[in-house]
């Protein structure tokens, strides 16, 4: 399957991507994730102010058939949520790398946590291995 993997992002094995911009972690789900889900019909976002730990399930993305957790890839505090996804959940399918779910102000563990995530090639390999 020919998925898109954006080069400058870090990826979790649970299929979230993260990008750091002005010291804020911006998070969404990968092209592979949206394809596996198929048509997204509902997104449940965390609350602004929520303190989160890397690996916690803090949001939910639902397709016609199933509900899947979206995990925080890094620890910190939720500072922004993308309400547009609540209105138009299909954006997750149409533009997975342009549709961020939430933004986290990271804690001091950021460097360590980013190191534990995969780069684009590592994640692509992981997806490939787990497809069969």
């Amino acid at each position, binding site marked *: 399957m020919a998925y898109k993997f954006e080069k400058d992002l870090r990826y979790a094995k649970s299929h979230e991507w993260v990008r750091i911009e002005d010291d804020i972690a911006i998070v969404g789900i990968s092209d592979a994730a949206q394809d596996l889900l*198929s*048509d997204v*019909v*509902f997104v449940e976002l965390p609350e602004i102010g929520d303190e989160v730990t890397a690996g916690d399930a803090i949001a*939910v993305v*639902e*397709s*016609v*058939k199933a*509900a899947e957790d979206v995990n925080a890839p890094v620890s910190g505090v939720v500072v922004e949520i993308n309400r547009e996804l609540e209105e138009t959940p299909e954006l997750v399918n149409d533009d997975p790398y342009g549709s961020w779910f939430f933004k986290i102000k990271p804690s001091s563990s950021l460097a360590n946590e980013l190191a534990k995530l995969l780069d684009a090639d590592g994640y692509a390999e992981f997806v490939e291995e787990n497809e069969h």
Partner: protein
Amino acid sequence: MQRTALYESHVELGGRMVPFAGWELPVQYPTGPLVEHKAVRTAAGVFDIDHMGQFSLTGPDADHFLQYVQVYDISQMQVWDAHYSLLCYEDGTLIDDIFLYRLPEGWMIAVNAGNRAKDWAWLQSHSHGYQIELTDISDETYMLAVQGPKAAAILQRMTDTNLEEVAARTGLRATVGGVEMLLGRTGYTGEDGFELYLPTAAVVNFWNDLLAAGKDDGLIPCGLAARDSLRFEACMPLYDHEIDAETNPYEARQGWTVSLEKPDFLGRNALLKAKLEDNHKILVGFEMIDRAVARDHYEIAVDGQVVGHVTTGMKSPTLDKFVGLGYVPPTHQKLGTEIDILIRGTAKRAKVVRRPFYKPRYKE
């Protein structure tokens, strides 16, 4: 895991194969569940439903036997009539929902894939003393469903037999796409359409011919996800969801199939009693007031107490609303009653609404 004769065809079309009732079937194709659902509502879709079972029933006692083992009064059925029915245990709870076709030579009974062995054993165990031939013809019978407002026109192009005149819930034998087959103007989607029963040996070519014949009308292959969302919108029950061995027909709102006037049939005493007494639970349709997706097995609560459960729930593709079906106590069945659906530990408010969510459009 079993594979149907169309397995390779599905894979070639990009079908995502999943296990279902012991079979590998496409849950969707690259088009996705929403596009497939909408195709059936506006044009046409074809479903591989070969996993379902078919039994042939013939012999001098065929009518007597069938009248005894299922709940509907088949004495009203003419040759070529088809009707929905139920198999019940002696205590009135449900073994399966089935479809009956009265044919010139006897009967054909279509059964759910997951209940095929159970239904077979049940019918066999009650067949002693009847002069009948009961045969499991599932392996040599391939079942397809062609459903949607354009379904009849598409099939018409493939046959000289006039399909226009065929009424809903009747069957016929015809040669379609060069294949002799049984057709029923029946289905599980709430749309007009046909279910086809053809020889397994002919299906691969027929499938390709059908897709070609229907292409310009928008016919696409559809998977299990769309099949579920379509039947759900029309509030048609699915075994192990709305109906099961803990539920009787009245609770599941299927009492209309039960002909208590029949002198004797399996489950009659218990069903008579159930009809006269209050239900322990009753199936309702609900619509979410709080934004959330209710799914099967989620608990239903009122004033903090769990009182029931969701049997099927989703965002209805046609209505674009979050709706569901579930069991509640009879005290909470009135339209407008507010209930809570427990979703990931949080109570989300919903209200009881009218069923069906989507009114079927059959050719009456």
